[in-house]
């Protein structure tokens, strides 16, 4: 029910932004416009989502690769290093990473991608690590009995079993990235943060509410969609998630 409302609200805000005018107009002063029209909200939303998708995908690939590496016997040595990197990645404030990256990477998309990528690795890595470390002994036994090579065992048993837990980490990362990406607009990345900043700069709360609400509602929908996906891929049905 709440989902339907959120979905409908997002659609209205994106496709028929002028319908929101009566709600947002009381927030403006001195006849300032209530609806952001400097660029299309739909376009900004798509750019915002693309940025989040790219960063989360990069975090997921690196984090899962690291987790697979450190759970093999040959890579166990790298475990402390991988832990340190992912933990420091999340401890570094994204705003600071963004600002520090600008002199090297320039303004716009790249510093934002870097900040989101670093910030998003930890939840996926930790979940992948937990899921890949705990193969139930009977399953491991069965794999050995069937003569699986370590590679087959990883691809056909461990990863499929770990998938829902990994996806739970991806969901967490994606939702955090979605609301953090807005900060990217302080260094000129094209995201919905632009709308919020336009509101801050021109002292127009209607823009701030518009941008903020849109990101918040999309975050709820995204989280729900990924939860559904998690249940879909769970080999145990709907109760397979751990984190």
């Amino acid at each position, binding site marked *: 029910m709440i989902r339907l409302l959120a979905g409908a609200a997002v659609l209205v805000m994106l496709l028929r932004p002028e319908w929101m005018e009566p709600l947002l107009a009381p927030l403006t002063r001195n006849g300032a416009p209530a609806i952001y029209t400097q660029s299309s909200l739909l376009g900004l939303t798509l750019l915002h989502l693309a940025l989040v998708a790219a960063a989360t995908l990069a975090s997921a690939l690196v984090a899962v690769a690291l987790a697979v590496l450190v759970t093999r016997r040959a890579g166990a040595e790298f475990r402390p290093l991988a832990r340190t990197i992912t933990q420091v990645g999340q401890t570094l404030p994204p*705003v600071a990473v963004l600002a520090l990256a600008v002199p090297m990477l320039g303004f716009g998309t790249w510093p934002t991608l870097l900040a989101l990528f670093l910030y998003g690795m930890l939840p996926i890595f930790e979940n992948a690590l937990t899921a890949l470390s705990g193969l139930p002994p009977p399953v491991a036994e069965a794999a050995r009995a069937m003569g699986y090579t370590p590679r087959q065992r990883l691809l056909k048993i461990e990863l499929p079993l770990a998938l829902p837990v990994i996806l739970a980490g991806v969901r967490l990362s994606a939702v955090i990235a979605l609301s953090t990406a807005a900060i990217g607009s302080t260094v000129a990345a094209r995201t919905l943060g632009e709308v919020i900043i336009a509101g801050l700069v021109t*002292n127009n709360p209607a823009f701030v509410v518009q*941008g903020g609400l849109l990101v918040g509602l999309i975050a709820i929908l995204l989280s729900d969609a990924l939860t559904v996906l998690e249940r879909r891929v769970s080999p145990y049905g709907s109760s397979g998630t751990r984190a």
Partner: protein
Amino acid sequence: MRIDRPGLVLAALGAAAMPLPFMQFRANRIVAGEAMAMPVWAIAAACVLLAIGAFRLPQVWRLGAAAVGIGLLIWLVGDMATGLDAPPAARASPGSGLWLLLGVFALLLADAITKMRPGLRMQTAILILACAAMAIVLVSGHLADVSVMREYAARSDIFASHARRHLLLAFGSLTAALAVGVPLGIWLHRERTARPSVMGTLNLVQTLPSLALFGMMIPLLSWVAASVPGAAALGIAGIGFAPALIALFLYSLLPVVGNTVVGLDGASPEAREAGRGMGMTPWQVLSRVSIPLALPVIVAAVRIVLVQNIGLAVIAGLIGGGGFGTFVFQGLAQNAADLILLGAIPTVVMALVAGIALDLVVKALQR
């Protein structure tokens, strides 16, 4: 002698960083710079140190090599900047090669420390030692001619007040979140029916981008300042400190309330039963049994919130709330990298130190 493979990877990364510009020299802070390379002797020394890290030597050696490496780099930066004997407007800033090498040595240090499996006391001692070393380097004035420190020298008076403001934002919002969130968590622990609505609301707050939450506080507080008698006299205004503090407070509530509930729910029923059996009142069971058992989980929330708020407090700089964000956004607006560093480096150091220190507290409580 056997190879330490993580050490080998780090050494390769370090070697790749050496040809990159070690420092950038610019006649003033806006013009394009010329790159300065690392002196040959320093490259040789760094290679030896990285090689020590790449072999399976006793971890103390690897730790020592990493510490000497970091010391060498910092000494070299100060020495090269001073050696230029440049006019005050000139800027000698750290280059990408230096940052990468510092990162490599820091990772080597962390790898060696983890593999030494130090006890809690030892870890605390290392953290204090590292902080003391940073303080000594800063106080000694050896880095005075490096760009960031020149920016600092030009603003030393306002730097202190922005630092205080930043700390006040981070710790003030944390304190307020604990004062409200822990009792709220205790209440939710008992009133299960109220959970979905309260947690749902707090979750919703968390999904709003920080930028928007800061922004929404501005009209709200201007309205309060204008319409509630006495509010303006208390310093409540639409722009500045108050909206930043309240936005950070709202962001902190979910971790505090959530972890308090989880911690209290997790306190074993047997322990609570035993408390009741000893004739404790419900209040005594809560304060003497459940809360102490839940404490590590609650402190874990303090860790999350403090690290998060130290970072988010930067955004206060965007709405006139002060703090290190002021320098960051001034630097971004003027395209002055050194000014960005002046705001970003203290933020990063504070977040890292707070994160490591509170991790130690959580571990100490779990024992």
